């Protein structure tokens, strides 16, 4: 009998290794969406995997479990850095401007700017769905929100993006 009832016995950490190899980009983007810094995002992923590797067995829903672990590690890291005196409160915003990949296309620049104008929750849903390729069901599980809430937030975010981009083109 395992220690955790919601887990399935697995002798090794092969499930974790395989999950990382399959989901490395979404996992990294989940952390990056919170921290907006590639280095910090990698640290968050690593920190989460240190804890995940200590689990005695695989969770019943490994993918969702690992996604949530990485996101929570990123939030913890962001809070820890925000509490430091040598890190001002807007440090993450500076990281976003410094570490975001360069965009050359004019429409992409406008899209990036419009995306940054969305509220944090809506932007996260859009980025998780379109860039990390997570389904609405996975996003709902990750953010611990109802599925209709996530879907409606996504639709509203797209409408807002359309408005912002039309304004930019005008």
């Amino acid at each position, binding site marked *: 009998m395992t220690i*955790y009832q*919601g887990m399935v016995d697995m002798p090794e*950490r092969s499930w974790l290794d395989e999950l990382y190899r399959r989901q490395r980009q979404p996992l990294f983007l989940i952390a990056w969406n919170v921290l907006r810094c590639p280095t910090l*995002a990698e640290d968050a992923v690593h920190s989460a995997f240190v804890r995940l590797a200590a689990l005695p067995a695989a969770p019943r829903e490994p993918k969702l*479990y690992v996604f949530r672990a990485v996101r929570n590690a990123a939030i913890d890291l962001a809070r820890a850095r925000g509490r430091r005196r040598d890190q001002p409160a807007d440090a993450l915003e500076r990281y976003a401007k410094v570490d975001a990949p360069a965009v050359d296309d004019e429409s992409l620049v406008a899209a990036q700017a419009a995306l940054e104008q969305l509220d944090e929750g809506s932007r996260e849903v859009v980025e998780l769905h379109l860039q990390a390729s997570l389904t609405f069901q996975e996003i709902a599980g990750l953010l611990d929100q109802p599925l209709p809430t996530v879907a409606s937030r996504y639709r509203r975010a797209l409408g807002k993006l359309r408005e912002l981009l039309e304004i930019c083109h005008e």
Partner: protein
Amino acid sequence: MNDIERLITRLPRPSPSEELDARIAGLIDSENGLETGADGPLAARPTPLHSPPADGVRAANRRLIVTVASTACAGLLGFVIGRHSVAPVVAGQAAIPGATVGAVAAPDGTPDVSNPAVSLRPERNIVNVQVPESEALVRFVMPAKQSVGLFGSGPLEERTESTQLE
């Protein structure tokens, strides 16, 4: 997928570096090494980030048990204190000077005053405390004897000798 979604999808995003892949691979390998008994670099195992659902059930059960136990202890304590507060004083335990065993109502309702100390069973004895009026208890608890005279009300003074005017 509409044009907005395609545009957002085309936005460049950073990718995890090979260094992270190496770190994760080393981490998993070392953890497997610990499982098989080899000396891995991870000496301490931190607790999992998220508690699995079973932990939530156990925590809820623990809270329920603590609540029930606390309620039972509080009830037992209240019962003991309440019982102690209304417990009759047994004559043998009375240490008040001047206290004597008084009469209590017999089962038929009439008080037995003939020989109360003998007639009562020990478990039914109740103390009848007779305190002299000079005791402080009477001064504070009992109302003073009042009299209404020519010059108003005041404490009654019992005088045995006649005054000089008389």
